[in-house]
């Protein structure tokens, strides 16, 4: 899948497209391989935008097209293919399973396609400073640690686009740097696109586009 296009997309909670928004009510295309930063204040709809693209919510008007396929014609069963092979998403709420260990949370994603070997997963956990947290229940980890687990989990699948929703909100600069380089490495190896939503932070990625929501 080489592109994701938004045509006149407007969330149902907005009656008219805000004049200042560079995304709502416009025609925009995100191309594979390009890094895009979307910034906005709280409540402007950053998470909504990513949820719409990921098919988690549909309370909007307009059209989203994946490659050549408009969202309307995507049947329910193809969503699983889209979510396991083409688009990966680090949710703002993380959506980890608190009863599973940190490692199990990653493996439950990885076993869908078998993208990474156990050694590769261990290496990523080591790099993210979570080597000793592998067998810890996710619910007992700090939010910052959970964020890193969620990012590693998102990297354990093939993807053309990586969606990040305020992914480093609870990380210190050192950890942001480590996790960013992990992400950068995976993006480059896949030639994938990045769509990062933040409150204004730009982090260290070399963006091709910067939109204000």
């Amino acid at each position, binding site marked *: 899948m080489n592109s994701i296009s938004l045509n006149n997309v407007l969330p149902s909670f907005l009656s008219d497209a805000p004049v200042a928004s560079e995304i709502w009510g416009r025609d925009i295309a995100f191309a594979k391989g390009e890094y895009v930063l979307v910034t906005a204040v709280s409540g402007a709809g950053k998470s909504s935008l990513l949820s719409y693209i*990921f*098919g*988690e*919510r*549909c*309370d909007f008007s307009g059209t989203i097209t994946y490659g050549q396929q408009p*969202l*309307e*014609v*995507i*049947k*329910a*069963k193809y*969503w*699983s*293919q889209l*979510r*396991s*092979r083409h688009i990966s*998403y680090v*949710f703002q709420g993380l*959506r980890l*399973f608190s*009863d*599973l260990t940190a490692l*199990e949370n990653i*493996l*439950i*994603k990885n*076993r*869908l396609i078998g993208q990474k070997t156990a050694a590769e997963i261990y290496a990523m956990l080591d790099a993210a400073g979570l080597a000793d947290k592998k067998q810890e229940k996710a619910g007992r980890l700090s939010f910052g640690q959970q964020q890193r687990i969620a990012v590693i989990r998102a990297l354990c*699948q093939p993807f053309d686009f990586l969606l990040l929703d305020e992914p480093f909100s609870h990380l210190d600069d050192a950890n942001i740097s480590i996790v960013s380089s992990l992400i950068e490495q995976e993006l480059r190896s896949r030639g994938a696109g990045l769509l990062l939503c933040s409150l204004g932070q730009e982090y260290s990625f070399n963006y091709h586009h910067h939109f204000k929501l």
Partner: protein
Amino acid sequence: MLRKLLNKNISIPQLLGYLFAACAGMAIIFSAFCFLMDIRPLLSSDRTGLFKSEFIVLNKRVPVFAKNVANLVFSDAEIAELKEQNFVHSLSAFTPARYSVQLYADRNSLIPYGYGTEAFFESVPDRLLGGTYTPWGWELNSRLIPIIIPRDYLTLYNFGFAESQGLPLVSEAVVQQVKFNVLLGGNGRLEEFSGCIAGFSDELNTILVPETFMQWANSRFGDSRQQHSVSRLIIEVNNPSDPQIATFFASKENYEINSNKGEQGKLSYFLTLLILAVLTVGVLIMLPAIGLMLLSINLLVYKNQKTLGNLILLGYTRNHLAGPYCLLVLLLNVLVGSISLVVAYMAQGWYMVRLAVFDLPEAVTSFGWTLLFALLFVLLTSALDILWIHRKIRRIPIPAKG
């Protein structure tokens, strides 16, 4: 891992509740089905019935002072009247033997040497016989005469004669192995034949031989001057439950029809009704059990809705997620089915001992049918559960367009 997530919130008491209720329901249903299969030969007319379909045997009532045998004979007009009735499909007469018959034991026979009796033969058209008797039929020059005797004769011998005389009891199978001599006389001739019992009849109090033999023997030994008279008729009816039959014969005071079949029909009907009642009880227990399972599935999917939703967002298909639940109900139903089959098997062992006197076919065969029925029943129940699981998981709200 997936199972660990999905099996969370499974209620063991609910599953145990289903297990007990479904075991009780299925055990009753399987046992009743097995019983039905076992006694099927008693219910159908195939075993005891002489004829292949529905017949009425008709004769005239013997008056207190029967001076003239002609009173018991059906006239041509009476036969014509019968033929005109709507309920009559065909009408045939019994052919009596016009020669003397003596049966006596062979030297090599199982019957003690010296036993013998005078007897008589009758015949009915071969086409009326169901073909269940072997050997049946007779060919010219054959010296073996197959004979059908009333089952009551054997009962009389076993429980009346043999017991009081200290003679051994014999089963139907043994009697069918016995050969004896038949001496036919008449028309200045006396000839010896062999006889064998081809079968037993519950409906006709007569000794039947094949029609072809009777025709040949009557022409050879019979008095050709003797008038052929019809005193007993077999009526093939279109529909045995036709009320016209009862109305017609009620108007004919001197006609007598065999009521044996009616009584047997009633007994079969009540026995079938009883088994159906037991089956209904089983179904009535089974229905709430199935309901309990469906409700448990509802509750389980509802409680795990968030987990299931998150797994769908991770890229799991809904079919994939339904898998562990389907496997669980399948295993549970197989367990319930197996326990119930064991109960049915034990029940069969218990009642077969008590039904041994009826000479029923092998229990293994009917249990095979029960096994097949149980398999279908478990598959159907599981299919219902599985469809329900898929339906519930399909409805987990991930509001994706398309």
